[in-house]
């Protein structure tokens, strides 16, 4: 008699199957079709792409943009994360939340805001904005929170006893340099790799600021020229770079996967006379990167006429956006929690790397794959419905909920589950009676994060939404071509409110932790 299949194995299989259907299959189909031409193997699309005069300059532009954005985010985000985690900087919590705002909005909002600002300044500023410089400025504002928040979280996760042991023999610069930063390095490097890959695959900002990059080419070939082969061939290098990026990150993390028995927060950088200048600098940064562009964007948004027109032309998109995001967030929360549960204790590393690669793959690439996979007469029930969009969100963002769930689960002592096992409880019972009740905050956090990511998504919303069923970010982009600026501003404001409400809830959910020392 064979061994009975355990419930745990079945659930893991179902989760893996969902990730494979949503993410692996589209990428595989896309890769296959890029080398399959007229019924036989062919590299024609790649030959055409590589030999075309446009490919290499666009590839170079994408790399340059990603490198410059990563450098700016590293230079500002890492020190900011350190200051917020370890110093007595005034208003640090307020600065941190303010700098996080651009991340929860569709990336082109900041670009749109800057366009309004430079429209009032003149041609020279406009020339600068609509090009490489503007793209770096906007993408740095949007992705800065990633380096800042991951640095902040990594530093807070360092066991405070390790810092205290160093503090007995060294001042804070030595402790920071030799203990805190090396132990936080995996998180910081991860944030930089992530920013590089996200900047490399960003579509809406370079497209709006008219800076030609590979994702823009891929999208144009797909949406304007209907040339799937060329669009796929342009997308494959982006997918390959995403996978290489995740491999590099995994290689760096090998032997650096530190697990701490206890965590705690120790304040040890006393800024003294630097306190006011640094607070002023941080306030200036918040003003330049967040307040100035967003206030310019929303300046015209409050007129009743504009708001009325906005709701008339895109009211249904608002409802759809919230609904699709809520459904996807619920699926992602459940999937992420289960995957996190399986990955606990360093298991399922391949699955973990794969979900991360799906997060890093540009949305344009994933969407092309989804359309190619499901656009058949037999699968019309997925292709022509919001299911395609939900699948896209699930593939792209399952790494977010998985990692958040994993981080939450790591804080629960394994002995609690072991005690349940010793008392005879099966896996499902332990999951529902021990793990889930102890993880309610983690689950809420994961749902909100997934909701925000789905709501702000542009490429999947643009390319995978059913006909006549576009979500708000895609609708705004469409209306921008011929809509009045106040109406666009009102739509952006509605979108911002829909995104920021969960952020406010998030701020309430995360308890304020007192700093001692």
């Amino acid at each position, binding site marked *: 008699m064979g061994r009975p299949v355990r419930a745990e194995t079945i659930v893991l299989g179902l989760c893996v199957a969902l990730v494979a259907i949503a993410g692996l299959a589209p990428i595989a189909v896309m890769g296959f079709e890029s080398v399959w031409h007229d019924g036989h193997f062919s590299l024609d699309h790649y030959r055409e792409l590589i030999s075309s005069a446009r490919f290499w300059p666009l590839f170079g532009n994408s790399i340059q943009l990603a490198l410059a954005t990563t450098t700016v985010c590293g230079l500002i985000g890492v020190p900011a994360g350190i200051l917020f985690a370890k110093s007595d900087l005034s208003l640090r919590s307020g600065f941190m939340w303010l700098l996080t705002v651009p991340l929860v909005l569709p990336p082109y909002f900041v670009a749109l805001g800057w366009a309004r600002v430079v429209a009032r300044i003149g041609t020279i500023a406009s020339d600068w904005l609509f090009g490489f410089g503007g793209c770096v400025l906007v993408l740095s504002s949007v992705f800065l929170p990633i380096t800042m928040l991951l640095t902040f979280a990594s530093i807070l996760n360092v*066991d405070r*006893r*390790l810092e*205290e*042991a*160093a*503090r*007995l*023999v*060294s*001042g804070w610069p*030595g402790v920071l340099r*030799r*203990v805190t930063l*090396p*132990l936080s390095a995996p998180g910081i490097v991860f944030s930089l790799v992530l920013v590089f890959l996200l900047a490399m695959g960003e579509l809406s900002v370079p497209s709006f600021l008219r800076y030609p990059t590979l994702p823009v080419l891929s999208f144009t070939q797909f949406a304007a020229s209907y040339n799937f082969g060329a669009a796929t061939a342009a997308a494959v290098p982006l997918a390959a770079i995403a996978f290489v990026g995740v491999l590099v990150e995994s290689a760096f993390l090998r032997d*650096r996967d*530190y697990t701490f*028995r*206890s965590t705690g927060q120790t304040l040890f950088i006393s800024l003294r006379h630097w306190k006011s200048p640094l607070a002023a600098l941080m306030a200036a940064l918040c003003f330049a990167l967040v307040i100035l562009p967003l206030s310019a964007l929303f300046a015209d948004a409050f007129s009743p006429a504009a708001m009325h027109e906005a709701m008339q032309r895109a009211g249904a998109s608002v409802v759809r956006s919230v609904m699709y995001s809520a459904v996807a967030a619920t699926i992602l929360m459940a999937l992420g929690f289960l995957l996190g549960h399986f990955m606990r204790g360093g298991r399922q590393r391949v699955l973990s790397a794969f979900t991360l690669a799906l997060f890093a793959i540009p949305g344009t690439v994933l969407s092309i794959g989804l359309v190619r996979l499901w656009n058949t007469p037999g699968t019309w029930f997925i292709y022509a419905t919001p299911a395609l969009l939900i699948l896209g969100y699930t593939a792209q963002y399952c790494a977010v909920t998985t990692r958040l769930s994993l981080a939450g689960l790591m804080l629960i002592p394994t002995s609690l589950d072991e005690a349940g096992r010793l008392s005879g409880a099966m896996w499902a019972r332990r999951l529902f009676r021990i793990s889930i009740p102890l993880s309610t905050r983690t689950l809420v956090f994961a749902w909100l994060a997934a909701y925000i990511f789905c709501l702000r998504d542009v490429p999947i919303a643009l390319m995978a939404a059913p006909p006549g069923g576009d979500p708000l970010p895609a609708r705004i982009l469409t209306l921008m071509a011929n809509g009045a600026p106040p109406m666009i501003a009102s739509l952006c404001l509605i979108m911002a409110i829909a995104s920021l409400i969960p952020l406010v809830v998030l701020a309430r959910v995360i308890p304020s932790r*007192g700093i*001692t020392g």
Partner: protein
Amino acid sequence: MTYIEVDRVSKSFDERVVINQLSLHIERSERLVLFGPSGCGKTTVLRLLAGLEVPDKGEIRIEGQIVASSGKNLVPPEKRNVGMVFQDLALWPHMTVQQNLMFGLNARGVKKREAHVRVREMLHRVGLEHRMDAKPHQLSGGEQQRVALARALVSRPSILLMDEPLSSLDDERKGAIASDLLGLQSQFGFTLVYVTHNQTETDLLASRVCRMRDVQPAA
């Protein structure tokens, strides 16, 4: 002159009084064991002496110098010449055994050659010279204990604070490490303040015992 003086020190965490008006005198080269039940504030006393916590009220003096007074740390931890062995040992996982020991010497500006000699001597003294390139997770529990002890002593502190470091070991290993510790103390002459709730450890190490009880919240 009394070497360490704790003078009417109080400490609370989130309105929970952990230490209330504690006074304590410790002589040079003494081996004082703070003995008492869990939660009575023993570890907090060590952390106050190390400078990792600041007393809410009262003063702490070392060799007559006020190092902490009512809400202020006047001498930071790295200037107190204190070594500490933490309950969970707190060995830096990204550093080798040698690097764990070198860190403090580098931070104190000891020349590289001399630092290497001192690290080798200390590792030889605790029987771990052959493990100097190992990372903490590659060591056994007993070896980790000895590295933590060596790391605390390599900077030649005048005070060694130990927070129940032997609690996870069996009696035989406890005896071996306690014997090592006594040998090291007679060699280096440091003052030992040792926290435990275990009578065997107290019997092995103490030249004087200070019994602590749970502190009742101040009225």
